[in-house]
């Protein structure tokens, strides 16, 4: 077979980033199928003498350990018969019916088997999933979680980045380690940084199950998330756990007053070669049922590390979102994935997240990489610090609360300095290590660990060992903070310890607001019954979402223009009609020489005029600058100028840079040449327009100039400025006669 080079259209398409992604032909026997795997059972439930004796097609003696745990603990027998008898399509419709309450649905769902809920949710299309998520999530107020990690476990950078993440609004921070033994140091550094950034920010350090619990017991972290569940027994055992060990671990966390949720996600079983011919979604339905059965308050799912596996098959991205909704149906906290990067394409990764962003979840991302991609020790996230401004703009575009807010640069700089100061003081006071001033300065300024050259790579490990060997607890960290003048941070860390005593944040979907109030299923329940109900932003929150640092007002533009004021454009008096055939009038707009000094291309208005004059001079013509005061319409400016012009030809120029050549016998909106895209007009082009105007004046043949072409989003970049500049022009319009100007 000869290989033939594809035609250009396909060579070009092949080069696009989306084609770096892997797309799989569904392989049901390998579990590479989103819904309806060959071994997915039909829903079934048999209760004998108050005991479940058949679950989703398997009898009691055939139960694996997952079935057994769900059968013993996971199904509410009081509603099971009623719930299983409901037609799946009927129940699916209730999920999007605003007149049926969330409470009714979660009551019935608690009596449904994994296969039943999988069948129900597979019936919802994408738009219906958004509505179901809006209605079914546990907590009314949406929120978000950040990853805070770096390549070297640099404690100063971790603390500075934790404070930064808190400033941007994240309410949970998750760290992890490239070097396992560094974990205690990371936990301390991120906890301090979080306390610098905001009260009530929850912190976790994702490491091996026992090690993570041990950190929690010392008070060094305030929640846990990486307690993994799997949908087949084989993979569960490969993960070195059973449903019983996970149930015990769940209680162990609660026994120390520590919030926890479990982690699962479709595709993980297929990835590990143990899907047993079941679909990703059905296996995830087992995980979610098990999560409820073991008494976890919440689940992180939506693919997670295997999101790209689901993304590779038809309907896979929809199944990821359906997983999240299933968690909500089980009346649990939903931390909705969107963490592991599932596509090289910005379009695809946005498409994957956007419905969840709109529907709103307890945590939109179960790890928005608040640091740069290369510093994310979980691997690049679906969203990273590269994308924070995009996310803020998306919140503003849609009026959606995605949990983030704009952070002021000066404030972030102050927080980063305070975070590095606090870590420096605590590590020194506890004998964990000493940081140089140069290191701290770099950490404050750094956009990522590559910006830090003064670090001591051994320090984190030494610090971590000392924390373990000398049994440092959060009480010691609080003492060290207080002893060194960080009273505010000491109090915030103490408040997180006290929260464990109260235990209110153990309830479903709990976060703290900045006043240390618990927002949860109990205190802030989501009640959605159609438009105008459910979560509504407060005016203050709306203001945060609407106000991004890049926005500019007319007043901002005016003062920016004022910064370019020069006195080299001056008025000479009323402009008269000329009879000199070499005379070409350059008609300029009302704000010229008054309020607008720089065109959209960044060239000064005076320089643009200078080039026009020079071009006219090259053709032996004499340019005359006349400000047309009574209109801002460029056609009318040009025509008015042409009527004053001895040659009958004119150049019209708006101060923002748009220019044309006009002639007195033309209609106002006609012209001989037009430069319409002001931001792209260079000095050379104004010179060329001057030359061509001169040729028109002499009756010679000009060489028409094409507008420069750009594939950039010129309109997105400049249209808001244009609106403001036009408004400024309008303020300058008056009934004065045209005035002659001179540029010196």
């Amino acid at each position, binding site marked *: 077979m000869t290989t033939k080079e594809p035609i250009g259209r396909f060579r070009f398409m092949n080069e696009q980033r989306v084609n770096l992604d892997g797309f799989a032909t569904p392989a049901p026997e390998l579990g590479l199928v989103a819904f309806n795997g060959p071994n997915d059972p039909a829903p079934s439930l048999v209760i004998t003498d108050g005991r479940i004796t058949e679950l989703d097609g398997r009898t009691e003696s055939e139960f694996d350990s997952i079935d057994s745990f769900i059968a013993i603990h996971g199904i509410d027998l009081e509603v099971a018969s009623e719930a299983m008898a409901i037609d799946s399509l009927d129940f699916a419709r209730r999920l999007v019916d605003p007149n049926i309450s969330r409470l009714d649905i979660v009551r019935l769902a608690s009596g449904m088997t994994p296969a039943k809920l999988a069948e129900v949710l597979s019936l919802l299309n994408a738009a219906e999933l958004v509505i179901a998520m809006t209605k079914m999530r546990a907590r009314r107020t949406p929120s978000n979680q950040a990853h805070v990690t770096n390549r070297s476990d640099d404690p100063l950078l971790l603390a500075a980045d934790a404070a930064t993440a808190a400033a941007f609004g994240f309410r949970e921070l998750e760290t992890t380690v490239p070097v396992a033994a560094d974990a205690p140091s990371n936990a301390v550094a991120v906890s301090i940084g979080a306390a610098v950034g905001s009260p009530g920010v929850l912190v976790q350090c994702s490491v091996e199950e026992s090690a993570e619990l041990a950190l929690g017991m010392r008070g060094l972290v305030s929640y846990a998330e990486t307690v993994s569940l799997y949908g087949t027994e084989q993979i569960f055992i490969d993960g070195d756990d059973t449903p019983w*060990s996970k*149930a015990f671990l769940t209680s162990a966390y609660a026994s120390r007053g520590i919030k926890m949720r479990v982690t699962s996600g479709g595709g993980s079983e297929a990835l590990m070669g143990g899907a047993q011919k079941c679909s990703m979604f059905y296996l995830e339905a087992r995980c979610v049922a098990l999560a409820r059965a073991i008494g976890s308050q919440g689940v992180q799912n939506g693919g997670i590390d295997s999101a790209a596996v689901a993304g590779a098959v038809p309907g896979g991205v929809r199944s990821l979102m359906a997983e999240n909704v299933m968690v909500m149906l089980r009346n649990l906290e939903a931390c909705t994935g969107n963490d592991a990067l599932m596509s090289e394409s910005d379009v695809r990764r946005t498409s994957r997240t956007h419905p969840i962003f709109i529907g709103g979840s307890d945590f939109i991302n179960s790890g928005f990489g608040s640091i740069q991609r290369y510093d994310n020790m979980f691997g690049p996230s679906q969203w990273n610090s590269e994308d924070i401004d995009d996310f803020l703009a998306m919140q503003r575009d849609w009026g959606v609360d995605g949990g983030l807010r704009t952070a002021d640069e000066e404030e972030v700089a102050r927080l980063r300095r305070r975070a590095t100061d606090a870590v420096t003081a605590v590590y020194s006071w506890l004998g964990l290590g000493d940081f140089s001033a140069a290191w701290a300065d770099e950490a404050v300024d750094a956009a990522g660990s590559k910006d830090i050259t003064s670090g001591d790579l051994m320090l984190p490990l030494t610090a971590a060992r000392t924390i373990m060997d000398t049994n440092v607890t959060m009480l010691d960290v609080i003492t060290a903070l207080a002893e060194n003048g960080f009273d505010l941070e000491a109090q915030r860390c103490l408040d997180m310890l006290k929260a464990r005593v109260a235990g209110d944040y153990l309830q479903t979907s709990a976060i703290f607001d900045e006043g240390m109030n618990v927002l949860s299923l109990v205190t802030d329940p989501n009640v959605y019954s159609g438009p105008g109900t459910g979560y509504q932003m407060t005016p203050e929150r709306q203001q945060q979402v609407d106000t991004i640092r890049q926005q500019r007002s007319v007043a901002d533009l005016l003062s920016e223009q004022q910064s370019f004021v020069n006195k080299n454009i001056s008025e000479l008096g009323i402009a008269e009609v000329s009879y000199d055939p070499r005379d070409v009038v350059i008609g300029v707009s009302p704000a010229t020489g008054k309020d607008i000094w720089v065109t959209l291309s960044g060239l000064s208005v005076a320089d643009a005029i200078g080039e026009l004059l020079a071009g006219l001079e090259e053709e032996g013509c004499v340019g005359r600058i006349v400000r047309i005061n009574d209109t801002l319409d460029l056609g009318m400016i040009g025509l008015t100028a042409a009527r004053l012009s001895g040659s009958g030809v004119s150049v019209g120029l708006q101060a923002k840079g748009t220019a044309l050549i006009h002639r007195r016998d033309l209609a106002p909106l006609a012209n001989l040449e037009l430069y319409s895209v002001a931001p792209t007009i260079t000095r050379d082009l104004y010179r060329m327009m001057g030359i061509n105007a001169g040729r028109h004046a002499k009756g010679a043949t000009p060489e028409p100039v094409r507008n420069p072409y750009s594939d950039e989003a010129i309109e997105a970049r400049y249209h808001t400025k244009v609106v403001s500049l036009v408004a400024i022009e309008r303020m300058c319009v008056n009934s004065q006669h045209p005035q002659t100007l001179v540029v010196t």
Partner: protein
Amino acid sequence: MTENQKGFSGKQVSEVTVEAIRRGDITLDDVRIHPDTLAHQADVATANGNPQLAANFLRAAELTSLSDEMVLGYYDALRPGRSTAQDLLNIANTLQAQGAERNAELFRQAADVYARRGLTAK
């Protein structure tokens, strides 16, 4: 947050201040949850439609009196291939004797299912 709440040690949480920590008057047991509080949270979970979460809180209440090492040890005993069925039943008996009935039941269930599914120590 309720300021008149007591920690595991019985100390009122209102007595736990930065100043008291600085003086060395506070231990981790003062900022650890009390089993009565977990029992209360179990009631809250039940009232909010999640009896499984309530059951978890009640198992947790039983574990509050166990040391960190004991808790981590029991967790390890439940991991696959670590314990024989008899080991698990022995732990169940120990827990039962300590009044940790719910956790004892969990270990008894595990002994049964692990034996059937080949998850016991070889």
